[in-house]
């Protein structure tokens, strides 16, 4: 973008001491990145990489297997059932959903409000 180029040229002209302050002003995007990394230090460096994409491809995936569920219920007497992750971003895994975890699907019997 032409805007960013102008700002980059301005940075080269300032002194090294002010460079750090200038860098924060140069790219709002980089400043936002720094903010994000500060909040989530474990964030990987490949945002557009396969993790994000695979999550996108997995949309709609539910795992409810009555066999797994009953097996897990039987095991619960001996040890704890793996609890659901607070954010439901598990792609696969140890998390065995229960019927309560799955959102209820409501059939669309009602006419659209746009149709008046």
């Amino acid at each position, binding site marked *: 973008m032409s805007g960013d180029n102008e700002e980059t040229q301005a940075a080269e002209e300032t002194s090294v001491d002010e460079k750090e302050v200038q860098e924060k002003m140069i790219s709002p995007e980089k400043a936002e990145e720094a903010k994000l990394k500060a*909040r989530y230090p474990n964030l990987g460096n490949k945002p557009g990489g396969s993790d994000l994409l695979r999550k996108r491809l997995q949309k709609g995936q539910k795992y409810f297997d009555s066999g797994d569920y009953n097996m897990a219920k039987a095991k619960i007497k001996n040890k704890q059932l793996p609890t659901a992750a607070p954010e439901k971003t598990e792609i696969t895994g140890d998390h065995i959903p229960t019927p309560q975890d799955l959102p209820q699907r409501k059939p669309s019997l009602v006419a659209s409000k746009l149709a008046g």
Partner: protein
Amino acid sequence: MSIHGLKTQHYNSSFIDSSDIISTVEFNHTGELLATGDKGGRVVIFQQEPESKNQPQCRGEYNVYSTFQSHEPEFDYLKSLEIEEKINKIRWLPQKNAAQFLLSTNDKTIKLWKISERDKRPEGYNLKEEDGRYRDPNTVTTLRVPIFRPMDLMVEASPRRVFANAHTYHINSIAVNSDYETYLSADDLRINLWHLEITDRSFNIVDIKPANMEELTEVITAAEFHPNQCNTFVYSSSKGTIRMCDMRASALCDKHAKMFEEPEDPNNRSFFSEIISSISDVKFSHSGRYMMTRDYLSVKIWDLNMETRPVETYQVHEYLRSKLCSLYENDCIFDKFECCWNGNDSVVMTGSYNNFFRMFDRGYRQDVTLEASRENSKPRSVLKPRKVSTGGKRKKDEISVDSLDFNKKILHTAWHPLDNIIAVATTNNLYIFQEKLN
């Protein structure tokens, strides 16, 4: 150009039923019909009333013409996959006879719907009464020919074709070919070519699925056929590239004929660069000479003869660049905005947040921000341009970036193919605006 409110259809309630969320808007080829699809799998079609002689300056209003349930929610037990009924795209076929046809798709299945009018009803059967009961044969003493009598207009929608089971991933686009016989459907990794008459098979024409899914780096985000070259189509990616393919070159178009990509300054690269470069929509101009792409912050116009960079770039909401961190946290950075051309390709339009939408006049190099809301859209009043203040000082009537409502997003807009009439969808309301004629 001044836009004034024509009539607004809206659902007014503090509680929003998520099934009412509008997910697609599309005018047909004459602009007489406007179709909307929603998250609940329903299609609502509006029809423009003929111009009244009393108000020749005002084009006809759009009223509900037909509504039907296109898709139902499904559950794929084999893959443990919930299939949403949300209508992702609607595409009209050009009209060939009295009936209208449209394609509507959810994540997995495309359907061809026939919408037909019935305004006559046969009366005077020999063997049946008018209510359908059979007459006592002994009372039938004469023979008569049933005649058709007018009845109240009934608009019927019936599914004529169901194109199913061809997509492993989620369908994001459908596009009708200019040959009016075939169409394409695109999911995250593959594009298929169908014949409108044949439902039990389709041809795969693009496949970008890597052998090892760990190596996946980009997905297909949108695809469209060229408006008059039936062999040409384009598809956009999550990495900000557009590939143009020629179906004459080979059966499988994995190798592109052209690739459009704007070079990026590596010094400016950040965590967000790739995410905001992801193209959410691609649309050819009506002329077929240009195409437009929408990424998170801008709209770009490309000359099909130049792959190295766009010929025009318009900033939609550049002030969001300094908000990317919170937009990533609330997932807004993944919002998929669409874009559209006006009939003569001189103006382009796209949506933004706070129920704002933007128009860019390519010729006059002007742009305007307008708002679609009940308060600002009284019938026959002119829409006032809006402004977002980016600096420290906020002028009167300006809105500061921090006051923007990011839940009020305009993702779907459509422009009448011939007139200056636009359809703008907020979360669950549809607004139709037309240009004030003098």
